[in-house]
């Protein structure tokens, strides 16, 4: 089952990458990044069946960092939305305002 879980994880990761590249809605791009993080979590848990409990501990840390990243990232999105009135990344075309 380890190999199968790794293949599922690879597929979910690739789908997340595709989402980040082709979508322009910044919230959906952010969701796709969470999808990639989750795919990596699945790979870690699959490897934990072979290397021991450390794989599961890493997933614990990845989840915490993902929560922190979601909080800060969404705050940045809100802040940008106040300025541009849009969530389309193509409209975010200035580094300074």
């Amino acid at each position, binding site marked *: 089952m380890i190999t199968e879980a790794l293949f599922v994880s690879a597929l979910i990761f690739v789908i*997340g990458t595709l989402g980040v590249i082709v979508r322009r809605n910044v919230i959906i791009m952010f969701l796709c990044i969470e999808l990639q993080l989750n795919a990596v979590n699945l790979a870690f848990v699959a490897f934990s069946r072979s290397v021991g409990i450390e794989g599961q501990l890493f997933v614990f840390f990845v989840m915490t960092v993902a929560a922190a990243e979601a909080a800060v990232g969404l705050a940045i999105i809100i802040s940008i939305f106040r300025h541009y009135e849009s969530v389309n990344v193509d409209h975010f075309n200035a580094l300074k305002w």
Partner: protein
Amino acid sequence: MADLLFFVFATVAIGSAIGVVVARNPVGSLMSMVATLAAVAGIFVLLEAHFLAAVQVIVYAGAIMVLFLFVIMLLNLGHDYERDMKGGVWSVMAFATTGGLAGLLVRQLGRSADSPTFLTGDGGDAIDAALAEYGAVGAIARPLFTDYVVPFELVGILLLVAIVGAIVLAKKDV
């Protein structure tokens, strides 16, 4: 039975992951994401990571996804059906790149399935023994509070920094 369940969970996870990418409405995307997270939690249970499956459902699907939903409602995007896929050369290149990435990953994983270094360790037996002795929470809490206590405390500091940073960024007048 476990193989059948794995197949079902894997199908749901991949199908709703595709749903996250193709849904036009951000809320639909979010609901697909919740389905993916729940299916991946099911795979966690099949891989004997019971505590992580619970955390996945409670923290990821429960808290982080609700945070996303709050932001979607706050920005009033719930009825946003505008197409936002990139088209043309960009999407062709995106599919080519991710297709190449998928091919590379599958090739490497297929190769690692042949070589016994990563996939045939006895860590699974150690986890099963720890689960039987300390229970689902104790098995992960014991190493977390002994060998990995410094990263654990650092993650606490990171969360504090994230809370302060989120408040500072989202406040109107700082």
